[in-house]
Every structure is written in structure tokens, then in C-alpha cells.
């Protein structure tokens, strides 16, 4: 039988300072990027016109830019999209001010480009025209969706486990949200509806992973009532390690195949998912665990688990944050 990471006994909680330091640094870099460049929002959010063009010959980008500028849409973004024959033109809605005829922008740009390159040499394969109001609604809905999904999960976990686990899982997931945003900013990925969907999938995936570990903690806590939470957490993470590795490798394989073969349209989605697998795995171990310990120490459990809770509290009390014991008692 082929086994990996079987019967391990790593102390995962011990280097939590290093882990938190790394992730805080990463998020900080991401936020700095965000501060400098801002979020690269898709036209679904900004409003405007996006056209995807397919040329028969690789065109000169400068020519496209000059033509679009001359047609009355300066400051349009022109980007290569996949192959060198495909480009996207993104024009801010000059019509937004007039309030009417948003659909004319695409028509005018197409006419100008056909005039320059010849109608038979290019094809408009995709057009997206979004009025200014739609973006506001989408932004609002995206924020509501993300917050609501976190609240709903927290409630579910509070019922199935207890509130400490719920809060720890949600904080770990909040971390994933931040680090994924940092990744978005550093990679300069465009935030579209699809990317929001990917973000929510990352939330789901990360929660999923945290819950698998917490489920084991719940079980082990019942079995070993004398062990500290610190020990139980480490034991549970080690026990679920083979599963974690194998599952993440499999999902990463599927995502990598999406990234490499599923085409340009879905690429930002695939990037987010791939990063989400990494950060989700990381946070389930290095964020959810320490946070759970911290909560446990601040608000120790009452009733039958008193023994265990007070032990954990006594051990870790003097310092702020989960401490590293000299040796785990097994």
C-alpha cells in the first residue's frame, strides 16, 4: 500500500509566528499594490464597452489604439487576449454622461476598425456593453454574497460544532479572502463576476478543509479528555495529513488543467482557484488552529470539558497567543 505522510508527528502549531508573519507580509504587499494600482475591475463593474476582436493577421497594436482613439474613445484599453491575433478593446462609456445610447460605442468602434483594417480582416467575437447602474448593483451583490456566506457558515458551524470552532473557521476563511485579494492585486487580475464566483468557491473550499480538521478535533477531544487542546489539534492535523495532501494534489491537478487548457476567458478564475487551494490549505493548519487555541484561552469552555479547557488555559495563559510547549504529551 502506497502511503504518504503516514503516522507523522509534526508540531504544526509551533511555528505559528513565522506562518502568521509570512502571511501578514504577503497581505501587506498585496494591499500596497492595491493602494498603488487600485482594483482592476471588469466592465461588469465599471460600466463601459468591451469588444473581443479576432484578426486574420496579427495586427499592430499601435494601429488599433490610434484607430480607436480617432473614433472618439481615447484612454481605451487595448490588450492582447490569448493568441497574437486576438485583442480586447475596452472603452469607458463616453455615453455615460449623456445617459443614452450605450450601445452605440461598440458600433462606432467596429466601424472605425473595419475602416482601418478592412471588414473581412477582423471579426467581433464578443461584445459586452454595461450601463453604469449595473456595476453598482453587482458590487453591492458581491459584497452581500461574500459576507452572507460567511455569516451563514458561522451559524451552521456554531450549531454543528460550537461557536469557537465557527469563529475560528470564519477567521481563517477571512484570511483566505484577504490573501486572495492580495494575490489578485499582485497578479493584476481583472475582477469580473467569474472571479467573484472563484472567490466564493475558495471560501467554500477553505471552509471545507478547515471543517475536515475540526471534525477530527471534535472526535479526538471526546476520545482523549486529558490532552490539552494544543496536543489534540496537532494530533488531528497529523492524522488528517495524508487526506489533505492527496485531496489538494487532486484538486490542484484539476485546476492546473483548467488553467492550462480551458482558455483565456476562464484563466483568471483558474488562477484564483489555484491560489485558493494553497491559501486554503495553509489557513486550515496555521490560522484556524492557533485562532481556535487563542479563543479557547480567552473564553474557556465551561461544563464537562472544564478539565481540558483549564489545562489548556493554564499552560498558555501567561503570553498572548498560543504558546509552544516543550513537549507534547501523548
Amino acid at each position, binding site marked *: 500500500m502506497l502511503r504518504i505522510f503516514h503516522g507523522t508527528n509534526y508540531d504544526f502549531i509551533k511555528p505559528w509566528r513565522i506562518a502568521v508573519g509570512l502571511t501578514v507580509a504577503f497581505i501587506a504587499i498585496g494591499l500596497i499594490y492595491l493602494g498603488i494600482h487600485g482594483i482592476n475591475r471588469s466592465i461588469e463593474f465599471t460600466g463601459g464597452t468591451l469588444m473581443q476582436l479576432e484578426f486574420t493577421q496579427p495586427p499592430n497594436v499601435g494601429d488599433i489604439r490610434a484607430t480607436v482613439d480617432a473614433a472618439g474613445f481615447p484612454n481605451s484599453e487595448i490588450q492582447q487576449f490569448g493568441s497574437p491575433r486576438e485583442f480586447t478593446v475596452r472603452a469607458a462609456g463616453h455615453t455615460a454622461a449623456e445617459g443614452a445610447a450605450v450601445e452605440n460605442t461598440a458600433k462606432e468602434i467596429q466601424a472605425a476598425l473595419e475602416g482601418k483594417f478592412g471588414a473581412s480582416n477582423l471579426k467581433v467575437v464578443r461584445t459586452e*456593453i454595461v450601463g453604469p447602474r449595473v456595476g453598482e448593483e453587482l458590487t453591492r451583490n458581491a459584497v452581500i454574497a461574500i459576507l452572507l456566506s460567511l455569516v451563514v457558515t458561522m451559524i451552521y458551524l456554531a450549531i454543528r460544532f460550537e461557536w469557537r470552532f465557527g469563529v475560528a473557521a470564519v477567521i481563517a476563511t477571512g484570511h483566505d479572502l484577504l490573501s486572495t485579494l492580495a494575490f489578485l492585486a499582485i497578479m493584476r487580475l481583472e475582477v469580473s463576476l467569474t472571479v467573484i464566483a472563484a472567490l466564493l468557491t475558495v471560501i467554500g*473550499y477553505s471552509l471545507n478543509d478547515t*471543517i475536515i480538521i475540526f471534525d477530527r478535533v471534535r472526535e479526538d477531544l471526546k476520545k482523549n479528555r486529558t490532552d490539552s487542546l494544543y496536543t489534540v489539534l496537532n494530533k488531528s492535523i497529523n492524522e488528517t495529513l495524508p487526506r489533505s495532501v492527496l485531496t489538494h494534489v487532486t484538486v490542484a491537478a484539476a485546476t492546473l488543467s*483548467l488553467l492550462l487548457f*480551458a482558455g483565456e476567458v476562464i484563466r483568471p478564475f*483558474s488562477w484564483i482557484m489555484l491560489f485558493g487551494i494553497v491559501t486554503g490549505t495553509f489557513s486550515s493548519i496555521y490560522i484556524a488552529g492557533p485562532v481556535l487555541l487563542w479563543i479557547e484561552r480567552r473564553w474557556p469552555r465551561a461544563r464537562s470539558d472544564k478539565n481540558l479547557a483549564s489545562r489548556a488555559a493554564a499552560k498558555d495563559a501567561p503570553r498572548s497567543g498560543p504558546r509552544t510547549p516543550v513537549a507534547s504529551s501523548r
Partner: protein
Amino acid sequence: MSNLKYRLGIILALSLLSVYALYPRDVKSRQRRADGTFYDTTTRRVPLRKGLDLSGGMHLALDVDESKGAVANKSEAIDRALKVVRTRIEGMGVSETVIQKAGNDRILVDIPGIEDRERAIKIAQDQAFLQFQITDKTNALEKALPRLDALARERGLADVASTGAKPAENTTGLSGLLTGTDTVKAAGGAASDSTKKDTASIPGVTGGAISKMILAGQMPGQFLYDIANQDKLKSFFADSAVQAALPPGKVVKFGSDSTLIQNKTYRFLYLLDARPIMSGEHLTDAKPSTSPLEGTVVEFQLDNEGGRRFQRETGKHVGDYMAIVLDDIVMGFPPVINSAIGTRGQITMGQGRDLQNAQDLALVLKAGALPVPLKVAEVRNIGPSLGRDSINNAFTAGAIAIVLIVIIMLVFYRFSGFLAIAGLALYVLYTLATLAGFDAVLTLPGLAGFVLSIGIAVDANVLIFERIREELDRGKTVRTAIDEGFFHARSAIIDSNVTTILTAAVLYQYGSGPVKGFAVTLIAGIVASMITSMFVVRTFFLLWLNRSRGTQTLSI
């Protein structure tokens, strides 16, 4: 043993149901021939609807346009507008259109396979507000010109077409040419009697910008202007101060046609009586037609009440010119009223409009006017080639992902891995069947979510197998280890999947378009994965245990 039969029976039933749900069946659709008539065809296909990003097509969001005045009860107005838009779009003869209300003030229109963006927008958005108005015959605009010129000066309006050096020469030259051109004879044939007056330059020209820009036409109330001045004139006459300066009871409307004089394109504008003698609500039928004399026309018919009123009103205006105004545009040339008109009439489309235009106009007129003006909030148009590429890409990615997963599972879990893969095959079948059953739309993010969910579906199996291994390590027998493994993994599988379903449900509630498709795929995938991992794969294990009684080793 009976338990096992029961389990196998359920799996078989589920699989048969899934195959039935996915079995290709006949779909009736309405198609339109090139000549505009309809026919029904039946095509055979798998009942999984492709989203617009995969099939190619157009998504359109229409909002109530409140720029010309607030609308009191938007929700109710949208309900009525929805019916009109539906009748019009379905009349276009494209199959599988989806037209629905979103929120309280938006109509969403999905038209698969359509390539002509402009045409679809026009058909959905045209308000089709039809009015018949009499052209002004009192030279009211000429009298108002000094006031208009003064207003134009205030606004710094200048004539761009004719340079200041020779406006007078230009004007008279034009008037001379006008009566000689063919266009006038063909289109304004009825106007020939009364064109003698007013064809010279407008009396009382003060040299102001407006006086220079517009020239008298061949019928009372008709004027020409250079197309280069169009934007200026349109914004000038849209100004409320300008409208107040117009003679009382008169309105300015622009015409649909243009004419070429001395290589310059001129268009028409009209001064009309503000009170319409008739509006389109009494219209019962409209159909396109061609006549050798007038080109493409749309013939319409009015109901009895409309007919009576039309007859009465036109009887009062014999000898006048009647402008047919559709959505504030004067269609073709206003015909002269020779005698009272009854229930039948026609709209001249003017030159340069083909039969398709007439068909679309007839369609829009027959469906009725929109109760509120609509404006385009969002358009997404995906070419069919891009859709095909997307499907191919997604299938390549999916196939490669599946191959990788199969290899990983076989390498790590051997025989048990094989059982898991058999379970995964059923998982794919069940998921697709659920999607077909709920009539879900397959979108590109949905396909990506599906590929992803295959990876996640493996997770449940991995959880169970690792647990079985642990139980075997503790020295339990194969049968007990399998039982315990499935039992202990259950809470983790349920809790983790339910939270994902909750997230997906939120996504479904607040997402739109492709994202909704993604959420549905995710939910269907998770439910199918729970069933296959906890029930189907377990049954496979039980079956194997039964077949190999007394086996002490499990290949896992």
C-alpha cells in the same frame, strides 16, 4: 444479502433515471424562413441547455428609461412591457429565447445564436409609439425664426455645413434643384401641387444660425437641413427653452429619410400639429409589403373604433399632409390626404430600407407599443465561434483533469481506487442528469465548476479510504474497518459539504447570469458526490466483500 440487493436496486434505478434524463429527445422550435414566414422544425439533442457564452448569442438587460419623466408604477409597467417584448422577440423566429423580469425594474432577454446585435436591440427597445400628426400649414416656423435665431446666438450655435461666405447662393441653388430631383417626384408625388409656394428661401431670413441651417421643403411644414448639422439641430430642438419658443400647439420632429443634392446629404425635419389625430393603440394588424411606386411599405389595419375616428379626423383634413410619426421620427414622406381614410393605411419605409426592416416594423407594431420607454442597461454578445472554442477548451481541460485524477487514485488506492473511479463515473452521470432535470443552463464558469467539483468529489473518497486505512492499522478486520471507515468519515463529509452548499446557495441568490449557472452546477455536483461516495462506493465495497468471503486483505 437482501440489503445489498436493495442497494444495488437503488443505484440501478438512479442510473436509469439519469440516462433517461440525458437521453436525446426531440425539441420543437420555430424557425423563420428568409421570406419572413415561420415553420416548425424538430431537432434531436441532449436536454442540457447551453448558456449564451457556449452557444453564442445575446443577452440584453432593459431598464425603464426615466430620462424623459418619472414612471409611477415601475413594477407594473415592466410587467406590461415584458409581454410586449416577449411577443416581439418570439416573433423574430429564434428558438429558445428566455425573456424574464429581474427585480422590479428590469427585463432580461436571452437570444441564443443571434449575430445581428443592432437588430435585436432595436426590436426589443423600439417603443413603437405610433402617431398620426398633420403638418403645419401656417408658416409658423418661419414666423418663429427670429426668436429661434436669437436663442441660437445665445447658445453660440453656428452652421458648420455652409460657410458664411455664400449662404444665400447656396440656398437659392438648392431650391431650384429640389423640384427637379427624382426623389421628390417619387416620394412626395402627392405633394406636387402645393410645392410651388415656399420653395424659394424662407421669407424674412435674418441671417441667424437656424435660418441658415434649415431650408424650406416641398410641402408645408417640411424643412431640409445638411446632415452635418444634425447633432446641433437635435440638441437645439431638445432644449426646453427652444421648445417654449416654438409656436403654440406645434412640435418639431425629425424625419427618417435623407436626400442627396449636389453630393451633399440633406435630411428632413417637420413642424407638426402637436395634437395627434390618431395613435397606434387601435392598430390590429400590420404586414410588410412592397409596391413598385413607393418601395417597401408596411400596411396596417385599424379596429372599428379606430377606423371611425380616423375617418372623421382625416375627413376634416382633406388636402393636408399627414405625418406618420413612429417613436418621434417621421416615417418616409407625409402623404397628402385625398379623402377620408377608413380602417386601412400604410407606412412608407422610404428609400434604403429593405424588406427586413419592414418585417421588423410590422412585428413591432403588431405587438403593440411599449407602455414605458426602455433603455439598454447591458448587452453581452458572444459570437458562435467563441462559444465553440470555449466548449472545446473546457472539454480538453475536463478530459485531462479526469485522466490525472484516475491516475492519482489508481496509484494510491489500487483496487479501492478503482471502485472510487467507478463511483466517480456515476457521479458525472448523476450530476449531468440533475442539471438536465432542473433545466439548468450550462455556462463556461459552470463547466469550470464541474471540472473542479470532480476534483472535490474525490475528497470524500479520500477521507473514507484514509479512515479505512487507519482502522486497518488498528488491527481491525477488513469488514469492520470498512464499516468504521465509512461511519467515521460521514460527519466530516456532511459538515464540509453542507457548508459548501450554503455558500453556493448564497452565490445563486446574489449572482447573475453565468455565476448562477456556476452555483447550480456546484450544488448539483456536491449532492451527487455525497450520494456516490457514501452510498454507491460503499455498496461496491459490500458487493466485493460478499463475493470474496473470508478475504483478509484489502487492496487500498
